[in-house]
Structures are given as structure tokens and as C-alpha cells.
């Protein structure tokens, strides 16, 4: 259950930038909601919008400590493949969609669809905000030829001797490395 909620949060973090971009495009300011904030320049609103998913991502990293543990020993990994850039095409796609959405209700509808598909796609928890916190994305192939997805702060290049002691299981394909 807790894992399910956590995955919802991760999915929201990965897709919420669409809403931010839409709001920026529409020049929707916080002062529209709270007239007292009129004194601040426009970009303050945009920064606040952007900080919300950043904050939620930070919280999700914190919650990840409570997930189920796994580990990999030296010699378990046969191949390592960088995946930092793999999310860029889909992310650019999100951005262009957000820029061309005409109405708020269209946004809600499109966001809902993207949310559901990102959640169900399992391997697609790519959230570029992880990069801000120093995390990188990698595909690892184990010694028994099974491919998994790892979010880690380490710079991985050489699979020999590589080990992870504090992996947290987000789902059966995705793991986050909480080793400092």
C-alpha cells in the first residue's frame, strides 16, 4: 500500500512539470489567487510553481528510505548503460504538449492520461528533477541477463567490481540507490 502511494507520488513528480509549463505559458500568476501578492514580479510565481515538484521530489527521496531493501554484490553486474538522456525525447514531448494546450480543462484531461500511462509503464519514472539532486539513471544487466533500472548518485562506467549495498525497490524493475 505504502509502495503504491509512493509510486503515485513519483508519477506525479515525473509529470507535474507539464502543469508548471502550462501555467507559465498562460501567464497565470499567484496574484490571481491572492491579490495581495501583486507587489511581487511575475517570475516569483513561476519560481514558486517550479519549486513545488522540486520539493515533492525531495520528499519522495526521503520516503524512499522506508522501501524494501535489496543489494548487489561485486560481480553481479555484467553491463552498465547510461540512461540520463533516454528521458529527454519523452520529456520534450511533454513540454511541447503543455505549450500547445489551449484550455485548462484540456490540460487536466491530458495530464490525467499521461499520469495513468506513466504510472502503468513501470519503467518510466524518469524525473529530470532527480538530476538536480545529483542522481543519474542507468540500465544494469545482471550476471543472469536480467535488465533493471537504477537511480543512483554514483557515476557508473565499469561494471566489474561495482556493488550496491542500499538499494530501495520502487518496483520490480526500478531501484534507487540510497548509499551516500
Amino acid at each position, binding site marked *: 500500500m505504502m509502495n503504491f502511494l509512493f509510486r503515485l507520488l513519483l508519477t506525479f513528480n515525473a509529470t507535474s512539470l507539464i502543469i508548471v509549463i502550462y501555467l507559465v505559458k498562460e501567464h497565470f500568476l499567484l496574484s490571481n489567487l491572492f491579490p495581495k501578492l501583486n507587489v511581487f514580479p511575475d517570475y516569483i510565481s513561476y519560481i514558486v510553481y517550479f519549486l513545488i515538484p522540486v520539493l515533492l521530489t525531495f520528499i519522495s527521496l526521503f520516503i524512499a528510505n522506508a522501501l524494501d531493501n535489496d543489494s548487489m554484490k561485486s560481480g*553481479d553486474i555484467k553491463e552498465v548503460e547510461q540512461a540520463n538522456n533516454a528521458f529527454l525525447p519523452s520529456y520534450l514531448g511533454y513540454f511541447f504538449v503543455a505549450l500547445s494546450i489551449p484550455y485548462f480543462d484540456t490540460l487536466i484531461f491530458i495530464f490525467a492520461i499521461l499520469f495513468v500511462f506513466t504510472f502503468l509503464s513501470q519503467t518510466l519514472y524518469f524525473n529530470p528533477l532527480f538530476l538536480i539532486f545529483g542522481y543519474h539513471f542507468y540500465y544494469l544487466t*545482471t550476471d543472469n541477463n*536480467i535488465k533493471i533500472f537504477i537511480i543512483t548518485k554514483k557515476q557508473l562506467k565499469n561494471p566489474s567490481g561495482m556493488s550496491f549495498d542500499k538499494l530501495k525497490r520502487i518496483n520490480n524493475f526500478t531501484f534507487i540507490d540510497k548509499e551516500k
Partner: protein
Amino acid sequence: MNNLLAKTKGRIGSFLKVISDELIFDLPTDLDNPIEYNTDYKLEDDEWFAIKEFSEKEYCIDFLTNRFISTEYDIIPQNQYNNINYLCSYQEDIYYFQKVNNRHYVSKKLLYLNRLTITESEPIIVINEFADAIYVKSEDTLYFKKLTAISTIFKGIDTLYKEATQEDTEDFLNNDFINLGGNYDATKVKKANRKRIAMAMETISHFNREEKSSIFEYIRGYCEDLEFDENDSNFTIEAEDDLKKLLFGIEQRYYTTPLGNEKRLANSITTI
């Protein structure tokens, strides 16, 4: 890191991850004087049977020869909780196996005394004090106490079952549910039946009185030509074939097809 896996039943049964970071079984301190497997040998409390060079045996499973990587195993989904064939705890390159039978699943009604309410407890699986089998990878040795407990974990390991000795055979034929007739006695029991006796003795030792009588009822239902005395409640065994029928019955090899109601005998058995 310690990991507990469950192997599910069925043809496509797979290993699934249950939990991690828990010490499930302790390594017994008495593994240092292992006995090579021998059906006739009765283990002392502090002894274990051992099979050396286990990974080269045909009944060894790939799971033990492959490298153990916990991230490869999916988390066990809820609908598989009742479908566990056995558990395997991986603790520092040592694999501990426990066979899971229906008796390991426990769900009881609990009476809470301070509230005086009855609640059905959540189902649990009882973990035995000792594992049924222990595989130490660094020594490539499998330790176990009872071959029957692990024969569905390592398919084909029951070929190790040797035939019952003359003494065992006599003991078995002396059971009060057997009435020997027609000059048939322990000396006439052939090799195939001796093997079956060795297994049946193990099987029948787990039956209580009620189970025994229901198994006899079952055997009578399938083997009409096997003579049964209602008063003494025993079977008359006069030939090898009679004994074979009885032994198959004890192993519950007889079944009826759901369509067509055909009575059949299972030639070999695999738990699914």
C-alpha cells in the same frame, strides 16, 4: 544481505521475493559431522545427511547454480500468498529451504478476553525452527534431515531412496492393517515393493488414527479386489500385486477423472 524468497507452485512456478534483511533460519551448529545419505540410517538429533558436490547432481536446481541477485526477483503479489510450494532464505551465501504444506498455513479464531470478541486471525505461515534443507554454496553441499520433506523441492532426489531392509519390510508387514495370507511373507517382497515400503513407512508415520482409517476407506474404494476385513480392519495381502496396490493407496496414487469418472493410477507424482 538476507533475502526470503518463495517458490510458487505449478508448472510456471517461479521464485518471488518476500522480504529482506531478516534472519529467518539460524545455521545449525551440528553440521560438522555429516552422514552420507542412507535410507537405513536413523539420524541422531544432532546429525544431518549431506550430499557433496551437489551442484553436479541432476536433481540440483538452476536457482542454486546461478548467482543469487535479489534485484532479479519480483515481489510476491498478494494472489500468490496461498500458492507457495517452499520458502528459501538466502543468508550470506547459504540457502535455507523450508517446504510449505497446508499445515504451515495457520488461520485461527481468536477470542480477545478484554473485549470478549471473536476475531479470525490473519493467515500466517509457520516458520520451522530448522530448515528442511541447507545448501552451503562454498562447500557445494546440501544438508538435510528428511528426504521426503525435500523431494518436491529437488525433483528426482527421491531416487536416493533405497529399498527397505529385510527388517523394515518385516516391520511394515507386521502392521495391524495387514493380514498376510497365502504363504506370502517378507522374504518374498521384491525390490520394487521394498522401495515403495521405504516411502510408505515414512508417509504413514505422519497419519493419525482418523487419517489412517480414511486412507483405508480410500484404498477400498479403488481396489475392490483387495480383501478387507471389516472386524479387524485389515487388508489381506497374498501376493506382490496386493502389496503394490496397498502401497500405491498409501501414497494416494489413485484418482478419478472429473469428466467421465474414470478411475486411474498415477504413475508418477509431482506436486503442483
